[in-house]
């Protein structure tokens, strides 16, 4: 995404409140007819992985299905570090989408920054997990 969505903390079309764990914040913001899930900060607190997993798989995923969205953005360009438990949480989200019948799956466009070392190589395995519904979109 060329510009970050505004951080208002206001309720979004999915009706989800932001998640804050240590210095990690996850916020769902409305973007046009869809939403962006925006991760910022630093995800290496002990609870970051499990909380992120619960938020993405347990809250965002069912809300996106309920709203019938076909595509959303996942913006990690402001995420300085994500530990392996956090990466596993992203994978679990993709696996939850994969479990849906193909017609009900939605596409995630992953906005990331090649200039942040872990994102350059570290996010590519996600595309192997979900080649048909995850699109990697490097910051230009």
């Amino acid at each position, binding site marked *: 995404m060329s510009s970050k969505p505004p951080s208002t903390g206001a309720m979004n079309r999915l009706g989800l409140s932001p998640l804050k764990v240590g210095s990690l914040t996850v916020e769902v913001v409305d973007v046009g007819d869809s939403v962006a899930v925006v991760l910022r900060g*630093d995800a*290496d*607190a*002990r609870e970051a*992985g*499990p*909380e*992120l*997993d*619960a938020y993405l*798989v347990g809250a965002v995923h069912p809300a996106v299905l309920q709203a019938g969205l076909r595509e959303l953005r996942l913006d990690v360009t402001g995420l300085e*570090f994500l*530990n*392996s*438990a956090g*990466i*596993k*949480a992203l*994978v*679990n989200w993709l*696996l939850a989408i994969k479990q849906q019948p193909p017609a009900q799956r939605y596409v995630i466009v992953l906005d990331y920054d090649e200039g942040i*070392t*872990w994102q350059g*190589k*570290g996010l590519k*395995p996600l595309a*192997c*997990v979900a080649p048909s519904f995850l699109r990697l979109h490097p910051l230009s």
Partner: protein
Amino acid sequence: MSCPAAWIHIELVPMWSHIKSLRHFVRDFCLGVGLPGVTADQVAMTTSELLENATKYAAAPHLRYKLRICDGHVEVSVANQASSRQRRTLRWFLEEVTRGDPLDAYLRCLERQGDSGVSQSGLARIRYEAGATLSATEQGDEVTVLARLPR
């Protein structure tokens, strides 16, 4: 230049809050001794993942962290006491994550069904992302995991 050109040895209590502090310190140290930014980031990521594992599974309130910057490579190691069951599990994981192509091994770990939010993929991540070789040694009930990264 003989090995190591620069090094850090730290003994610490396994506390989650130390991991982030050490990750930042190690990154700054690597940059300060002239390592490229990408290498410094990979050493910092390796430090974080190894310390997380040791903090989760340490059987005693004592960890030893070592960083050795050598000609051609960087060594990161963390030693902690562990139960015999945890040492067996570590041996199994290490065999699993060092088998075959690094990306394939990482994907096997990431897609393995397990408790939510528990990755069990830190070692595979180090091997894939940092291009590291991994090994472990045991002395009594102390286990040392060593990651050797190219520089």
